[in-house]
């Protein structure tokens, strides 16, 4: 599902070159739940951004769901992000001026779909994460765990093949963290979704299918 080969990422300023990733090779199979671990600054988020087509590698190749994306322009990349990838962030990234259900609808407004169908799919996604009773609430009226569940609903509403989760339990207590993990695991089991999750939490990572560790931008075994 995800193939990275010889990925290198260098950030350049006028006088400094920072090597964020080097020689990263990674194959993630369809329906696999992969954790990426490593200390702060090891390149975990950079790797996730590159897989999620939010950032481009300095060199190397990426194949997502069979598509070589290296030469794709903005419109095509946006289309792949919209159709094939769902994102879950540590700080949720909900739009505070929109209600829960409107937040969940966001990925669908970039697809040609009727408003009615959008609403039905958003409500169904919220039901999956157990938030049917909070659809009209605003993010500021929800707890951290509820917000993250909204973010997961937003990630799955478009039924993507891949979900990229950047420390989804990082802002939550252990009980809430387990709840979120359970939801993610059910997505893998029930829908065959491929998940790549960045985490600092070893016990959480141990519950996934595989752990990839990064250190100073390099993969370590």
């Amino acid at each position, binding site marked *: 599902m995800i193939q990275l080969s010889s990925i290198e990422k260098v950030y350049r300023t006028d006088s400094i070159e920072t090597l964020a990733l080097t020689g990263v090779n990674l194959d993630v199979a369809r329906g696999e739940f992969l954790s990426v671990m490593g200390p702060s600054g090891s390149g975990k988020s950079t790797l996730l*951004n590159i897989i*999620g087509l*939010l*950032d481009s590698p300095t060199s190397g190749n990426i194949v997502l769901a069979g598509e070589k994306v290296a030469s794709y322009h*903005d*419109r095509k990349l*946006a*289309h792949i*992000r*919209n*159709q094939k990838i769902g*994102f879950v*962030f540590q*700080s949720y*990234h909900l*739009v505070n*001026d*929109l209600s829960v259900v*409107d937040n969940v*609808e*966001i*990925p669908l*407004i*970039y*697809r040609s779909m009727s*408003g009615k169908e959008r609403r039905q799919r958003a409500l169904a996604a919220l039901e999956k994460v157990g938030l049917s009773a909070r659809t009209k609430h605003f993010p500021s009226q929800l707890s951290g765990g509820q917000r993250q569940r909204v973010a997961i609903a*937003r990630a799955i509403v*478009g039924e993507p093949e891949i979900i990229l989760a950047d420390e989804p339990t990082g802002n939550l207590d252990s009980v809430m963290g387990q709840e979120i993990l359970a939801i993610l695991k059910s997505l893998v089991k029930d829908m065959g979704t491929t998940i790549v999750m960045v985490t600092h939490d070893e016990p959480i990572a141990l519950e996934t299918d595989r752990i990839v560790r990064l250190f100073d931008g390099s993969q370590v075994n």
Partner: protein
Amino acid sequence: MIKQMFLMIWNRKRQNALMMIGVFISFFSLFLVFTTMIYMLSNYLKPLGFEYENVWYINPGWSMEEKDDILETLRQVEYALDTYPEIESYSFSNTFLFIPAATNSRTYLRDGREVNINQGTVGDEFDDVLNIQMLAGRWFDERDNARARPPVVINDQVRDEFFPGKNPVGEIMVNKDGEEVTVIGLIGEFRNSGDFTGSKQMMFHRGTTSMPSDWLDQMDGMFSRILFRVKPGSTRELEQRIQVHINNIAKDWKVKMGRLDEARESANNQTMVLPIIMAIICGFLIINVALGLFGVIWYNTKRRTSEIGLRRALGSTITYVQRQITGEAMVLATFGMIIGLFFALQFPLLGVMGFISSQIYLSAALLSVVIIYAITFLCALYPSSQASRIEPAIALHNE
């Protein structure tokens, strides 16, 4: 996408209120300025109703003497003017020509309602001097010497008010004091205040030196004039000769001479002062509002960097981001203008300035809408372009 744009605007109504108020104020100011300008332009494109080229005037400036003495002196002036072959025709007139601020009106009764009509007392040759075209009836002449009721010539504005759809010649009009006059002639437009001023109701009375001196009561020495049409190409030298000649006849009078084309230019300049001041103030206001709009849109865009990054991550293209920022600004501008239009439409609906037609108000409103949209679009262009360059990976870390 459009539905969500409106939702976002509604949910941010407090933050957006300032921008809408700014748009409303600038729209309304623009509306007033454009209404004035379009009104003046439409007047400029209409005929004046008379010709001013090669028409000169003498302001006799007589001091208060015996009316018969004044009349006698005026007769001598007439004889003097007859001696100049360059003068084609001449006439007395107390009609304000190209004096925008001056009016002289009298109230007439129309079905018990009082209507103010601008008045002028003029001579028998007045229509020849100014090349005024008759629409019906005739101008004054000696046949009017023996009339029971004083004759008047009215213009089509008076006809439309008093005798709509009828030929007014032969009709009788009554003023507030019960004095009756007979309409003997109808003329069209007579915009004596200048090119930029509107149509007005006009009524002319007769005054010549062959009549008893009573008509002089209506002639204020300050504003009474002798108008005369000279042959094309007449020079300043002729002007000086005539002035010296009249000075010799009327030694105690403060005689001044001038030309109507120069008076017209001066009147037009005077009329333009107010709209120019309004336009300058409005210009500054628009610059102020444009800067304000730019600032608000820029600030909102910066504040929403994280949201823009999120939308890019979830599938929004660069074009979508640009459309969203510009679209929201345009929608807010629309709301501001809807409030402005509500107040603007009260002008034609309530007839606040009845002399301005609904078409002018609508044109001004339309033009203001176009200008506000253009300003808003330009103000949103740079912030939306900057927003579209936001790297989603960086923006998502900008919490």
